[in-house]
């Protein structure tokens, strides 16, 4: 089920009403959340529910066993069970074809042409997200930072909780599980915040991102046809398409959770207002970047083993972070670009040049945005060849008039993007988080804000596209 679908418009109010009617019975409430989460997922393809259930069973068992194990060897063995099962499923469903093709390409270099090794595999929606979520549970228990739950329903609900099941935010067990196990209290301010955030998220997705997406898809669908200015314009717009698409999704997820009495962590914090790439990653898809930091970078040794190892760890983290997004060399290169720049920033920070550069921080916003823009080309194109082709064409510096296509689409894109950016600037200047925006609104202000946003959605929404991050 998509957040931007008519089905969800019916589904959410039903769940909301029944959920709060069951407020006196925590177990029944959690069962309702679990069943509705499975319905939410099965709406896409019920067969892949089995993967979520397998993951949940494995990690519930592994978590308990790790906690109860008396020897380090046993604890490691159970952690390995969890890692193998989860990463194994992820590898088969997400990466098998990529590795098979890459292997065949490598063999071709040596003059051997293996048979076609690829399989017709469907990528289960959300597998990357719930795999990371469930892994954080067993790893935290292994690290003795968290105690396993004894309640199967709570744990299964934690893995499948529908607001964040298919595209995050990746909530740690330490944040979400205790909330599931504890009686929720309806809070008026959370309800107001939730309503406002859901609607603004919806606006960001179906009004801004989907409108911009029409132009971007047209250009990136036939990149060989267009001149430099068209490609640069489309890439610039894509930077905002992906931001409003994914942050919009996160807003709906966080807002929906709040309506049900849960508090998720913030996932986006105006990332394009960043003076460095390091800052960018503290503001972009925060639940993933902190996951990578805590479970990959630190596991590799972080910055505790000398400068060379630190750079290696940083690069590995970003390369694997890239690969997490998709089974393609494009994502690895995308991660690589970020890894290199983060390493350079780390190096500069360790030298006396950093303070001098710091005084030029006003340019930091621009430079950071340009680096992110360049890397988005790899993210958007289908393969490395197309990405290099797009960069080559952009570097031809043919700045003749860009191709406009449907003037109505471009005019709407510019207007709606301006609205989105102005709103972000307002939040940035006022130092307000969108998550808290509705907290101080009274009844009339919440209702009026919601009515205005709905009116704008009605007038400007674009045809519904899948959320970009669903493919990951």
């Amino acid at each position, binding site marked *: 089920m998509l957040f931007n679908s008519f089905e969800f418009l019916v589904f959410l109010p039903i769940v909301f009403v029944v959920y709060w009617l069951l407020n006196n019975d925590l177990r029944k409430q959690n069962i309702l959340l679990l069943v509705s989460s499975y319905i939410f997922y099965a709406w896409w393809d019920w067969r892949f529910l089995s993967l979520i259930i397998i993951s949940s069973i494995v990690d519930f068992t592994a978590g308990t066993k790790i906690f109860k194990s008396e020897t380090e060897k046993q604890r490691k063995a159970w952690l390995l069970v969890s890692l193998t099962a989860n990463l194994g499923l992820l590898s088969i469903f997400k990466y098998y074809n990529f590795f098979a093709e890459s292997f065949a390409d490598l063999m071709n270099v040596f003059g051997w042409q293996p048979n076609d090794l690829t399989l017709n595999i469907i990528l289960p929606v959300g597998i990357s997200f719930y795999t990371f979520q469930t892994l954080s549970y067993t790893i935290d228990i292994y690290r003795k930072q968290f105690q396993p739950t004894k309640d199967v329903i709570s744990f299964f609900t934690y893995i499948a909780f529908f607001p964040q099941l298919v595209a995050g935010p990746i909530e740690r067990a330490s944040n979400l599980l205790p909330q599931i196990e504890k009686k929720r209290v309806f809070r008026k301010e959370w309800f107001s915040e939730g309503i406002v955030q859901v609607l603004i998220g919806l606006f960001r997705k179906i009004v801004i991102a989907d409108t911009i997406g029409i132009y971007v898809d047209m250009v990136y669908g036939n990149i060989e046809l267009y001149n430099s200015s068209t490609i640069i314009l489309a890439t610039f717009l894509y930077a905002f398409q992906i931001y409003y698409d994914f942050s919009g999704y996160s807003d709906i997820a966080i807002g929906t959770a709040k309506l049900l009495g849960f508090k998720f962590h913030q996932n986006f914090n105006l990332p394009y207002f960043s003076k460095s790439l390091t800052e960018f990653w503290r503001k972009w898809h925060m639940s993933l970047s902190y996951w990578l930091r805590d479970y990959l970078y630190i596991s590799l040794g972080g910055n505790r083993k000398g400068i060379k190892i630190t750079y290696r760890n940083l690069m590995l983290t970003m390369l694997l972070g890239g690969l997490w997004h998709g089974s393609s060399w494009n994502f690895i290169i995308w991660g690589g670009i970020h890894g290199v720049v983060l390493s350079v920033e780390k190096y500069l920070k360790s030298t006396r040049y950093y303070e001098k550069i710091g005084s030029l921080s006003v340019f930091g916003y621009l430079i950071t945005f340009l680096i992110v823009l360049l890397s988005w080309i790899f993210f958007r194109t289908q393969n490395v060849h197309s990405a290099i082709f797009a960069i080559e064409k952009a570097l031809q510096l043919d700045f003749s*008039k860009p191709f406009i296509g*449907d003037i109505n689409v471009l005019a709407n894109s510019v207007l709606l993007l301006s609205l989105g950016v102005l709103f972000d600037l307002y939040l940035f200047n006022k130092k307000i988080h969108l998550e808290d925006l509705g907290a101080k609104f009274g*009844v009339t202000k919440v209702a*009026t804000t919601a*009515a205005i946003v709905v009116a704008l959605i009605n007038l400007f929404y674009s045809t519904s596209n899948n959320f970009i991050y669903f493919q990951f």
Partner: protein
Amino acid sequence: MTRDDLKYVLKIMALFLVISFFIDKMIFFTLNKISDKVYSGQSVGKLNHFLEIKDDLDYVIFGSSRANHHVDPYKISKNGFNMGMDGTKIAYSATLLKVLPKQKKQLIFFHIDPENVFSTKYTGSDINGLGVKYNRNDIFKTEIDKLEKNNIVQKFYWSLSYNGKVLGILKNFFMTNYDYKSYYGYDPLNLTKNQKNIFERIIENDKIEDCQDNFDLNKVYNGYLDDLALFNQENNKALVFFTSPKFNDYCKEDNIKFEKIMKDKGLIYYDFSDFFKKDNSHSFWRDKTHLSNKGAIKFTKRIYNIFNVYREKSTAL
């Protein structure tokens, strides 16, 4: 949730519905007022223009952008109008045809694409383009309801019918690009150097398309074709269907099958998809399915010949 919390939620919901209802109606009626004064632009202006002059026209061209950009009515006869509209198919055009006056003898050129008539996905959603007049035109309302395109949300939020059109309407309200009184509905595609280059690159990368193998007539198309055949007989209209040229129409089976269907239904149909096959200069094209102004001038001459044949028949109706 306490009783107080419940009251709070219900209060917000009720207030939201009331405010939302009023904001929506305010926007809807304001946009009605504004759009009624707009006579230029594809959003609403062209439709208003057509509705204003439809009763006096001798002939009308209906269809998609491939009708709009391909036939210049001014070159045929001065009392005609090209009502071709970007992104529309049979539901939109057939509905507009039904608002033509019953008594007046009129010749209708109706553009149709064989590849669309066999589509399994087409549900007539292009009729939503007429949604701005849903509450103000009985024929539009009947047709939109018949195709079930006015959903429950739209019944509450009337302004949804203006979705995606606001900027176009406001722009044409404040700044008109042309004098609509000298506009005949034809929008020529004059090529810029950039567009010429793009088309050359399209041709360089041209690949043979996969042809469809389903030849079951789409239900919506079937219904409208039958409707139009009947309407034609009862309303003094001479109806001529045609397919516009394509740069390279690799798939011909759909054309052959469609020609037979039209023959079986007793409808007049001309297939011009290969019109430029013998003289396919790139300068005639904007892209593989749209003619440049130069190409359209040449094609209009062919339509003019047909016009001369059926003009006599339409006046003899």
